[in-house]
């Protein structure tokens, strides 16, 4: 219940508290500070330009033709028509600023209005706005601006207004997606139910949520507008009497061999202006949305791992000792999610690795498979398979173990198949990687046989199907077939039945049990379900908060659990009167999604 209450609370209050720190974040970010200051200076120069400029931008004087820098009265010299470069430069700033303001306002007004409408309204309206905006987006923008010159007369203000329309689809998309994602949030529902009119919901609740992406996009669009306007003015579009960077660059470009320095001033100011806008936009993004997801650092490489304390020779098939796994925390320091985990799995044995979400059981399983996310670091311990230290293996040697000696059945069958390849292609690739030298034909024959073995009645059809064309239960059978194709010594099954229908669950467990008996595999079954453990496991390892709290024979543990946590877990099952069936899938712990 408490979860519902927090979800209904409008996020405005907490976000206001966040805003405080956004300003502080920006002030601490050197990029934002530098870009912001440059921008401020340019804006001040632009606003004050009518007073700062000593000459009329179009006043030509014969004395000033190509005057060098430092000529009295012409600080930056004169251009080839004898106009004061500094004055023209200063007076070009307002042109650029107007450009940005017009283009961005038009884009924001259109994009945001229709984004709100498109996201919030019925399907038919949504389809038509979507259609119109993808149409706008496909237009060759610059070309359209040019083609319309006979109508606009090249006036940069009208041109930029049209350009704003062309930029609107980007904002429309941003707003629409945000609206779609918050539309069904509980607080919006709550507002709707309590009779708040739609217009107010949109204006107050939804617009508030989308403001930061809009601000960020606006900064980038302002840069784009200024760049495009400069380009058009460079081409000679519009009145020659309007001073602008583009026109100055064009004049200087024509005059390049006489005085290349004339090209430097407008180029530098234009570059500074757009660069500071874009960089400020980038800093704003970091400050408002948090840094974008980093694609993992390479920190796990080269970190030294402590050896386990217990150095006795391993006798079990799979021997995990003192395993510790850490992830970099928000402060960059490693934070352990698994500590001192030790257990063994004997040949042909079935061991249940049990614990609630976040207990570290999946992380432990992944470390045995050697498929931890890249940012994870194994800080301590050892994992031995038949005396071979898996943690010391190179990626190449690990590949030889994975698939051939250790296999894996995942939790969610659908997401574990590549949507772009047929079942057959994926199975054949898998077995051919595990068994080098196997021909395509042999691989196909083997997999066909296995598909039949795992209970698929029409293997031919399934073989040539894409994952989205088969059911979840079927997909899980396919994944099992893929896992046991090489008769592995150890099969690691991570909640293999959790995502399936209740009727299919028992069949899949039976299948795993049968295959185990047939192939003599050891099975490490990761689960939170004591019913499943009771059903097929002989031994149980109970984990809580990254540690093993109890390990033993299933019957012993069930009869007389020694650890209070295990006792709690078991008694909660007994309270329900029976061994529980699987609840709907709970989201994986945060650590697994890192």
């Amino acid at each position, binding site marked *: 219940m408490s979860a519902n209450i927090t979800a209904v609370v409008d996020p405005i209050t907490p976000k206001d508290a966040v805003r405080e720190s956004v300003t502080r974040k920006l002030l601490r970010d050197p990029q934002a500070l530098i870009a912001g200051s440059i921008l401020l200076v340019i804006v001040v120069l632009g606003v004050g330009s009518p007073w700062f400029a000593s000459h009329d931008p179009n006043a030509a004087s014969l004395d000033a033709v190509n005057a060098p820098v430092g000529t009295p009265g012409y600080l930056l010299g004169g251009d080839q028509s004898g106009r004061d470069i500094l004055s023209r430069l200063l007076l070009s700033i307002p042109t650029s600023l107007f450009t940005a303001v017009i283009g961005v306002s038009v884009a924001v007004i259109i994009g945001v209005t229709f984004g709100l409408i498109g996201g919030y309204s019925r399907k038919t309206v949504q389809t038509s706005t979507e259609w119109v905006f993808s*149409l706008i987006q*496909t*237009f*060759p923008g*610059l*070309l*359209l601006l*040019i*083609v*319309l*010159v*006979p*109508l606009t007369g090249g006036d940069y203000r009208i041109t930029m207004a049209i350009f704003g329309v062309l930029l609107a689809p980007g904002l429309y998309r941003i707003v629409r997606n945000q609206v779609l994602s918050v539309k069904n949030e509980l607080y919006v529902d709550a507002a709707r139910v309590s009779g708040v009119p739609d217009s107010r919901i949109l204006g107050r609740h939804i617009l508030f949520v989308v403001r930061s992406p809009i601000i960020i996009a606006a900064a*980038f669009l302002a840069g784009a507008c200024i760049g495009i306007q*400069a*380009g*058009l003015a*460079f*081409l000679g579009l519009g009145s020659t009497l309007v001073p602008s960077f583009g026109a100055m*660059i064009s004049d200087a*470009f024509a005059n*390049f061999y006489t005085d*290349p320095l004339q*090209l430097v001033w407008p*180029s530098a100011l234009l*570059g500074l202006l*757009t*660069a500071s806008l*874009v*960089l400020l936009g*980038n800093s704003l993004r970091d400050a408002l949305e948090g840094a974008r997801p*980093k*694609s*993992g650092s*390479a*920190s796990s490489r080269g970190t030294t791992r402590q050896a386990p304390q217990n150095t006795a020779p391993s006798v079990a098939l799979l021997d995990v000792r003192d395993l510790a796994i850490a992830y970099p925390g928000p402060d960059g320091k490693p934070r352990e999610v698994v500590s001192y985990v030790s257990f063994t799995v004997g040949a042909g044995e079935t061991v249940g690795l049990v614990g609630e979400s976040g207990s570290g059981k999946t992380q432990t399983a*992944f470390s045995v*498979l050697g*498929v931890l996310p*890249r940012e994870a670091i194994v800080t301590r311990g050892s994992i031995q398979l038949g005396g071979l230290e898996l943690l010391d293996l190179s990626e190449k040697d690990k*590949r*030889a173990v*994975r698939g*051939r000696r250790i*296999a894996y059945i*995942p939790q*969610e069958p659908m*997401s*574990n*198949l*590549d*949507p*772009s390849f047929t079942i057959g292609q*994926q199975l054949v690739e*898998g*077995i051919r*990687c*595990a068994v080098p030298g196997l021909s395509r034909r042999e691989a196909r024959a083997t997999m066909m046989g296995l598909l039949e073995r795992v209970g698929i009645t029409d293997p031919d059809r399934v073989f040539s199907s894409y994952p*989205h064309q088969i059911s979840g239960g079927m997909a899980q059978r396919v*994944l099992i077939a893929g896992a046991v194709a090489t008769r592995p010594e150890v099969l690691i099954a991570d909640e293999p039945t959790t995502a399936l229908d209740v009727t299919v669950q028992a069949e899949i467990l039976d299948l795993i049990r049968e295959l185990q008996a047939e192939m003599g595999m050891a099975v490490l079954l990761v689960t939170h379900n004591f019913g499943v453990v009771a059903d097929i496991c002989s031994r149980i390892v109970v984990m809580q908060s990254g540690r093993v709290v109890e390990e033993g024979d299933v019957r012993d543990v069930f009869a007389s659990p020694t650890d209070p946590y295990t006792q709690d877990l078991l008694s909660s099952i007994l309270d329900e009167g029976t061994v529980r069936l699987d609840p709907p899938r709970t989201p994986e712990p945060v650590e697994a999604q890192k």
Partner: protein
Amino acid sequence: MLLYVARRLAFGLILALLVTMITYGLLSFSFDSVARTLAGTNASAETIDGIKSQNGFDLPLPVQYFQWLGGIFQGDFGYSLYSGEEVGNAIGVRLTVTLSVVVLALLITVCVSVVLGLLAAARGGVIDRIVQVVIMTGYVFPALLIAIALVYIFAINLRWLPATGYTTITSDPGDWLRSVILPAIVLSIGGIANLTSQIRGAMTDELRKDYVRTLRTRGVPVSSILIKHALRNAAGPALTVLSLEFVAMFGGALIIERVFALPGFGVYSFAAATSGDIPVVLALTVFSVMLVITVNLVTDILNGWLNPKARLV
């Protein structure tokens, strides 16, 4: 699939009709002033009227439009009001120049973006940060400035490449490449920024997906996971970005061609539009609409081929 293509083409045709109709309507406002310009400053009212009727400007607008449209369907785009050139022909010649730059720019964009995006997503760390700086650099400076800087460095200072001008590929492939490589690089910079960040993001997402882990547990080599599986799944949205880039590059070519003095589509369009050369402007509209339709159609077909779920739509 054939039905799908046919439907998309029909839709494109309707779109083209609509757009040309609107353009025709909008342009009709300038017919008078164009006729006056053509007649010269001191022309009598009769001369102006004569020019109007000669060009059909005096007919009712729908009649004009359908006459023009009838010509288009026979491949007749009319003649330039100023140079008297056959418009279809003239555009064709310019189009090859622009297309050769744009296609080269597109190739550069794809190659660089795939490599950078893949590296950033797969390696992370320092490489990822470097790639992000590259992406930002692409956003930071307007193409115009980059063009001028490249001309200055490579053509004027180092004299490695010609600063301006165009050689056809048939007359000398080497000179052709030298004449289009700089403009193509300039055009590709914005595209590289967009496409790299798209691929980097999509690849990062893909590599976190469950199927990637399962493939790893089967002993599938990293290279195959990256290129065969993850990149393929990330390619759909990247293709859409690429198609938008293609269209944007056609626009961007306008400015670039001017810097490099290439006799392309952009320079031609600009001259026609500013002088009010109506048949040329209309033909340009037709060409660009058809271009957009073709690019979108090709994108959709490729997307269908990449994504089995979209195939049966």
